[in-house]
């Protein structure tokens, strides 16, 4: 188990990690996501020991390891660029850490063999990294990590150099490995699809703080704030500025400039009236060409993918995105009616904090 307690990091005067608390349980696959520059790599490198921790505690299995040198922490790391040693064969790359410890050659060979078996690299042991495909290289990088039998493996955007097809395949492979090795994994990415599909626990970071942490589906279904709501889910959640009013006691009214007007039962919660934001995921808007809906808008862009169709409706500069199943033959310029699936909406206050989900209001 790894604990970060109120961890901070400064670059000069710039605070890049601003008091972060994170816990990752044994065997968990934890993913740190967040936009570029939010401090994911920094956090990971602090855990690895490659960056010093300026404040707070880093606790691995109950022991504070702030000042333990990287190689003594029992942590392995897989780099974004893989950082395979180009002058060593696959076997040498994997066995490098053992050879540093002067483990006998035969023993290294055996262990490398075992690891290669797991990673299906047995046929490539004598090759140099330059002669491997992207996916194979990554497996070597992982092999180099797991041969140390670490209690924790860190990954820093390990898939971002791969093309999308390979990325999908490697995602599956990583999950398989995680299951087989039963190792704790901390995985950094800025790709939310990766996060969603792989994580037992997602930690969403924003500007050096934790925006929300939890199970992927919790984040998807119950984001704590607008940041997480828009960050998780693709295409991202539409955020509509709305005005909240309470025309009658026990009733809440939700309106916007485009003619959207929804009444809700006010379940007694003390919701402040005034400016607010309504979050609706593209998949929670039903579209119809002629029929009735909560509001209507003009289609500006149609993206037909065959299996589904994305529509951008409303103003061209800041459109609302709608996702529809199947291959619709709507064209730009058409006017469509949209129905909001109220049960799946989110309401945020002007600071972006969730108010409570409308269906429970």
């Amino acid at each position: 188990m790894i604990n970060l307690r109120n961890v901070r990091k400064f670059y000069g005067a710039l605070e890049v990690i601003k008091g972060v608390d994170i816990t990752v349980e044994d065997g968990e696959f934890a993913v740190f996501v967040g936009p570029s520059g939010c401090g994911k790599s920094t956090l990971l490198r602090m855990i690895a020991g490659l960056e010093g921790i300026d404040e707070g505690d880093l606790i691995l299995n109950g022991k504070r390891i702030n000042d333990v040198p990287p190689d003594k922490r029992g942590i392995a790391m897989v780099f974004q660029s893989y950082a395979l040693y180009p002058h060593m064969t696959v076997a040498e790359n994997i066995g490098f850490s053992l050879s540093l410890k002067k483990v006998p050659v035969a023993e290294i060979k055996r262990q490398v063999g075992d690891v290669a078996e797991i990673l299906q690299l047995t046929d490539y042991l004598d090759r140099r990294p330059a002669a491997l495909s992207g996916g194979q290289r990554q497996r070597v990088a992982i092999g180099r990590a797991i041969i140390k039998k670490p209690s924790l493996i860190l990954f820093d955007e390990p898939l971002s150099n791969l093309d999308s097809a390979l990325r999908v395949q490697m995602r599956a492979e990583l999950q398989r490995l995680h299951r087989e090795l039963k190792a704790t994994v901390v995985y950094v990415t800025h790709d939310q699809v990766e996060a969603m599909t792989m994580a037992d626990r997602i930690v969403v970071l924003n500007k050096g703080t934790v925006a929300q942490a939890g199970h992927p589906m919790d984040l998807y279904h119950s984001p704590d704030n607008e940041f997480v709501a828009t960050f998780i889910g693709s295409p991202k959640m539409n955020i509509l500025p709305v005005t909240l009013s309470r025309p009658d006691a026990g009733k809440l009214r939700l309106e916007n400039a485009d003619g959207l007007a929804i009444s809700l039962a006010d379940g007694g919660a003390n919701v402040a009236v005034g400016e607010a934001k309504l979050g609706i995921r593209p998949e929670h808007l039903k579209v119809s060409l002629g029929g009735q809906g909560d509001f209507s808008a003009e289609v500006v862009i149609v993206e037909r993918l065959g299996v589904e169709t994305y529509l951008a409706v409303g103003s061209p500069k800041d459109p609302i995105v709608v996702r529809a199943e199947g291959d619709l033959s709507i064209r730009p310029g058409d006017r469509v009616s949209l129905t909001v699936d109220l049960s799946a909406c989110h309401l945020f206050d002007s600071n972006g904090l969730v108010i409570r989900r409308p269906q429970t209001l």
Partner: protein
Amino acid sequence: MTDFALDKPGKSRRPDLLAYATLSLISAFCAVPFFWVLLASLDGNAQLFLSWPREWTLNNYVRVFAEEDGARWVFNSLFVVGSATLLVMVLAGLGGYALSRTRAWWKQPFLYAILLIRVLPPTALVVPLYKILLTLNNIEGNLVRIFVGGDTARAIMRWIGFIDGYLGLILVLATMQLPLALWIMKTFFDGLPRDYEEAAVMDGATMLQRIRRVLIPLALPGLAAAGLFAFISAWGDFLLPLILLSSPELQTLPLGLFRAFLRVNTIDYGFLAALAFIYLMPAVIAFGFARRFLVQTFSGGVKG
């Protein structure tokens, strides 16, 4: 100006002709001076001036080795310059790495310093340099003499002495090449991702292990380039060996050349040219070997 490595449709060959013409001119400029050495060294009756040998002979070369201590000079030169080059590569490899990775305050001043050191003409340093070397040599000599006596001590000092010993010349030659080599290596390491080192750190490698097992193999092109420049520059140096060496056993090629200068009253150009040609070859060969590393190394950009 001409065109840029692009395949042009409408294939006009005119710019190519111009390019060949220009390159041929430059190449001729570069190559012509070499003809004299080559021809004169094979000429039984060579003059200072370029002439087609009337009698072709290898005799000049034979004499370098048979009549003179040519083999010894070659060995000494190779040994001294080779060791200095090796030392430069090691030191510049380490130092360049430190310069590239450090964030300490002394980084910029140090870089300026090693750049500007190169302004100092060696002639201005020779006398003080000789004095400090002599001091070191005397201290060392006394130490050695505590343990071993007379002739053994002298034999030892021939190897490790600072004056009239291999070590001193090697160290000084190496030092003179260090600034440029440090610069090259620093630039090279700047272009080498830190990921490799960090991966090695995670693998539990100490700084030395990291350098020896990861960085040096990765830095080989840079080291080759730095070594090449050091080799060629040290190889061509004659002032330092001239001042620092005396013993006949230690003479190097440039000194042999100086010695051959006035054999009797006349200058034996054939002999001189043969010696010059022998002197020329290792540098040319070194260039041949390391050439492909050059552009690779400097392509990281000459900037830091």
